[in-house]
């Protein structure tokens, strides 16, 4: 029986239980077991099934009393926002869905308005591409012949088209991922409502 108490002591030492408290618990345990044995009983009358697992018993007792020393320098890091807030992931996916939708919308607008200078000019500035070629307009060399007619401008629509398709591609990918995220949830919710 001494071995049981010694095993408990080792566990308390390992858990950082202060010596005076460990001594007190060991003394109480020893006295109770000795009394049980003196009355013709056994340690099992005192300890029940805990008799067969001294380390677990010792840890449970010290833990219940709140005398286990906190671990040193191994503090768990604070939980991340996504671990603390259950709405974090749906909110992020919702935001991405919105961004994907806007990108697709912007791509459609660019495709539709790619011939318009109002659309082409900002894109041209972004991509630093040469401006439209203006024929026979103001500040342009006049042809060596007399031209009677309106001047006209040829817009360079290539950057607009490239941007539109890039936006469309990214937007569709984002929307596709969003659908993959939401679809199982919608199915689960539908099943739950249908019982």
């Amino acid at each position, binding site marked *: 029986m001494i071995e049981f108490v010694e095993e408990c002591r080792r566990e308390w030492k390992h858990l950082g239980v202060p010596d005076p408290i460990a001594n*007190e*618990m060991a*003394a*109480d*345990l*020893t*006295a*109770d077991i*000795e*009394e*049980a044995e003196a009355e013709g009983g056994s340690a*099992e*009358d*005192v*300890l*029940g*099934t*805990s008799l067969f697992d001294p380390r677990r*018993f010792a840890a*449970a*007792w*010290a*833990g*219940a*009393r*709140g005398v286990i020393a906190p671990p040193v320098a191994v503090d768990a890091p604070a939980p991340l926002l996504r671990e603390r807030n259950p709405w974090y992931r749906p909110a992020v996916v919702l935001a991405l869905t919105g961004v994907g939708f806007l990108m697709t919308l912007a791509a459609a607008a660019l495709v539709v308005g790619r011939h318009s200078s109002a659309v082409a000019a900002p894109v041209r500035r972004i991509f630093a591409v040469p401006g439209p070629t203006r024929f026979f307009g103001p500040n342009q060399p006049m042809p060596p012949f007399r031209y009677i007619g309106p001047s006209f401008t040829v817009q360079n629509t290539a950057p607009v088209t490239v941007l539109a398709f890039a936006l469309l591609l990214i937007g569709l990918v984002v929307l596709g991922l969003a659908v993959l995220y939401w679809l199982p949830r919608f199915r689960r919710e539908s099943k739950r409502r249908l019982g």
Partner: protein
Amino acid sequence: MANDGRRSQLLRGVLDLCLLAVMGEGPAYGYEMTKRLRARGLSIVGEGSIYPLLGRLERDRLVETRREASNGGPPRKYYSLSPDGRQALEAGVEEWKAARDAIDGALDLVKVEVTP
């Protein structure tokens, strides 16, 4: 076997209440409480020990402790009910009775055939 498991689970759920109840009879040290429980038909053999439960009751300030010399033996740690513990005991007994009555109400519908 299944009955033993159920009895064990039931006892585990109310053992703290039983400990408070036997402490209500007067201060007692660990093994003395085990003996009081056994005298009422509750043996902890087959269960875990009462010490972790006593530790929790102490931490929750439901019991007060003092070290006293026992009859010729080493000083023992005596546990007695604190005012909070007495309140917890009263509330727990009410809870137990309400649960017991509800369960009796459900189980009384069952006709058990007793074979001679």
